[in-house]
């Protein structure tokens, strides 16, 4: 049984933020979930998926975030508590649905979880999704701790039901991927089936209906604001030892999310607890204006500590203006907080000390200028990864061509690193295909793009249909490794679910899909067969118009997990003349140099045999057992 289904109320567990969120949702009686996987939210989905196989919960991996949101919205409008889970940029994909879902609203509680990623540990941007609350008019909740995240999810469902609107639950990586002690509560029995009552003049968003719905949304927004004013998640706190508790503290700090922890620690470390009052905002859209004005009135000077954009700062300044207050308020600035990246305790301490003029001696970081440079350890495609083989094949087949390589989001994005260097342009999921259309139209270069199987289903298909319709000229590689590898091997519509012992799923053939889109030149290669693939790819590259090459080989890490990896291992024999083509062209991490000679680490080798096929001396051979 998944540990998050434990019934023991009051039991303490050391849980990952994402696990605490799942537990909170289960305690709230979540009955229906949908997602497209994306770090840092992935463990939420992984756990819900597992739980769905052991309980009445319905959970699905949808083809993209927009689909996930719509699937969940229908459930919520049929009276079933639902959740849609995605990373921050996923909400861009789902935004079209979100904006008008806000007009329509929900019947049962619906939570839309957006996992933001300040510092971009695993993302292409660090957008601040609190603005989606403002844009859509929906409430936003943001936890500061793991324990709070669990409780807040329950609050989010209740709030959603009360307002009849979906609620945005915004986390950051440091909540999703931190671990803390959580106390379990009771699990509410989920209501798993519902009914839909027809009401087209409230559900079908033609202009005449939507005009009324917008009026309704603004009413809900007003209601949300008054709830935010009294919400237990927005609170003014005098630090322990503050004799001015509830009264006037000269220094005010307004904070949210993980910044709250940094602020509390800093105030203690700087020994200014007696002078500081803190306003913690956990319900951040609509902002609680009356509470903020009240707080400001008790302060001489206020600092707003928030990662990302000056979202609260701007609101706080506007409220001060309304209240006729002229005290100094600051947040983002050269001398204060940055809009870039994530905060850390020392950085927050420094800004607080400077702003409030508190003496502060930072910890002496050792002088490391004399320490020899440590060799870097960049991420690399796994040993034996089929993407490496495909990149090599394309490189050989395209030799002499002037090329552009638009790429997409997945493990294969690592093809950007030398020596492969097979990535020239990337903006978001699916962009490889559509940008190929534009590049091939305005340049004379040969455009060759790469997209993974899951990303193709997510948002590659419209670009491909566009290419056929508008008669563009490029070659698209669909790297079909049978799983959604980068985020942890989740299934996607092309996956053979029987390998995972899952039943009741359909399966979509990428090849059929591509042909049905009208692509005339479709080639399927097996990238571990190098020579044959190079010949086939050469032909595809010559084609005028849209050609698609489907490179089919299972992700080797996934294969290992399923015990389907080749058992064969390779070694470098005496015929090796030390050209090092293998290392220089493939850069497989199974290679190493020993006394100037290339060797293969048998523990890392996966038996793909690609290096054996490209060695000009045939020096790489299987180990006989």
């Amino acid at each position, binding site marked *: 049984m998944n540990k998050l289904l434990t019934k023991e109320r009051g039991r303490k567990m050391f849980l990952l933020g994402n696990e605490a969120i799942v537990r909170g949702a289960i305690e709230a009686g979540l009955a229906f979930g949908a997602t497209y996987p994306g770090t840092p939210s992935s463990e939420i989905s992984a756990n819900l998926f597992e739980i769905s196989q052991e309980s009445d919960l319905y959970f699905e991996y949808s083809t993209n975030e927009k689909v996930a949101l719509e699937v969940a919205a229908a459930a919520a409008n049929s009276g079933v508590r639902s959740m849609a889970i995605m990373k921050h940029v996923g909400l861009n994909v789902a935004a079209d649905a979100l904006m008008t879902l806000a007009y329509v609203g929900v019947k049962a509680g619906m939570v839309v979880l957006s996992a933001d990623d300040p510092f971009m540990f695993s993302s292409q941007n660090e957008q601040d999704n609190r603005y989606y609350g403002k844009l859509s008019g929906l409430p936003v909740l943001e936890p500061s701790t793991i324990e709070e995240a669990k409780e807040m999810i329950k609050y989010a469902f209740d709030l959603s039901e009360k307002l009849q609107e979906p609620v945005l639950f915004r986390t950051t990586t440091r909540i999703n991927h931190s671990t803390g002690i959580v106390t379990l509560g009771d699990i509410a029995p989920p209501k798993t089936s519902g009914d839909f009552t027809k009401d087209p003049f409230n559900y079908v968003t033609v202009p005449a209906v939507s005009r009324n719905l917008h009026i309704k949304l603004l009413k809900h927004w007003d209601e949300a604001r008054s709830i935010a004013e009294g919400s237990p998640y927005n609170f003014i706190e005098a630090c322990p030892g503050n004799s001015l508790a509830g009264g006037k503290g000269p220094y005010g700090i307004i904070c949210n999310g993980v910044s709250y*922890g940094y602020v509390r620690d800093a105030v203690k470390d700087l020994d200014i607890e007696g002078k500081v009052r803190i306003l913690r905002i956990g319900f951040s859209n609509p902002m609680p204006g009356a509470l903020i004005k009240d707080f400001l009135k008790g302060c001489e000077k206020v600092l707003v500590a928030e990662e990302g954009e000056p979202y609260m700062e701007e609101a706080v300044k506007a409220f001060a203006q309304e209240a006729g207050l002229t005290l100094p308020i600051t947040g983002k600035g050269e001398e204060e907080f940055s809009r870039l990246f994530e905060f850390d305790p020392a950085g927050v301490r420094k800004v607080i000390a400077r702003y409030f003029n508190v003496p502060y001696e*930072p910890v002496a970081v050792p002088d490391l200028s004399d320490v020899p440079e440590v*060799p870097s350890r*960049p991420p690399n*495609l796994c040993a034996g990864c089929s993407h490496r083989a495909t990149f090599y094949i394309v490189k050989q087949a395209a030799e002499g061509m002037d090329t552009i390589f638009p790429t997409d989001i997945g*493990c294969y994005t690592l093809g950007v690193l030398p020596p492969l260097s097979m990535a020239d342009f990337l903006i978001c999921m699916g962009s490889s295909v559509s940008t190929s259309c534009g590049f091939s139209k305005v340049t004379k270069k040969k455009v060759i793009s790469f997209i993974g199987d899951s990303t193709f289903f997510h948002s590659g298909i419209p670009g491909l249909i566009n290419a056929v319709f508008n008669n563009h000229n490029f070659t698209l590689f669909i790297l079909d490794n049978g799983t959604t590898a980068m985020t942890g091997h989740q299934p996607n519509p092309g996956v053979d679910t029987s390998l995972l012992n899952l039943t009741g799923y359909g399966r979509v053939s990428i090849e059929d899909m591509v042909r049905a889109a009208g692509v005339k030149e479709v080639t399927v290669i097996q990238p571990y067969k190098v020579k044959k693939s190079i010949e086939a790819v050469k032909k595809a590259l010559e084609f005028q118009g849209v050609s698609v090459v489907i490179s089919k080989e299972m992700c080797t890490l996934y294969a290992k997990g399923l015990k389907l990896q080749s058992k064969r291992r390779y070694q470098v024999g005496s015929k090796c003349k030390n050209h090092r083509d293998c290392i220089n062209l493939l850069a497989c991490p199974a290679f190493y140099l020993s006394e100037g000679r290339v060797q293969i680490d048998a523990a890392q080798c996966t038996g793909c045999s690609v290096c054996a096929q490209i060695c000009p001396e045939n020096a790489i051979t299987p180990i006989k057992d």
Partner: protein
Amino acid sequence: MNTTRLVIVAVGGQGNLLASSVLGEAALLSDISVRMSEIHGMAQRGGVVESAMLFGDARSYVISDGEADVLVGFEPSETLRALKKCNRNTIVITNLHPLPPFTVAIGKGVYPDLDELQATIRAKAAGLVAIDAVKLARQAGNELSVNMVLLGALIRTGKLPIKAETVKEAIRSRSKQAFVESNISAFDLGYGAAQ
């Protein structure tokens, strides 16, 4: 209660996440407040994995440069790279068994000399415990128990407010049944080696 800040660095696949969850469990059993954050890389192998653990009253989940009380490195060059987390009072524990990054394997970087590496760490921090954890793990009967060896060494320093017995209890509850015995003996060997 004061806060103790621990940074653990490792190479993906070395089992530092199990080590940190054992410590978390042990803290829970000892009724000590604990927070941890880790950077999960992508699915690919071989990158650096870093966890930060704060025991005691702190409310932050991360540790700033220069603010670790203890640094445990599962791989010597990674220990050296993480030295920026330390200050003059930091105790450092490192495995001495190198796992050279691929950049070194292909001649695009030089792996640091192990003696110099230890001398550097000794010069910058308050103390260094350096052990060949792979050797001890093999001795314990499971090469993959490097993480438990290093946990043993860590607990022996007395820097964490957690007792060896409690950690062993957590090891028993968190390890797969087949590995309990070798993990405990790896812990003991690490504990013994760190005196």
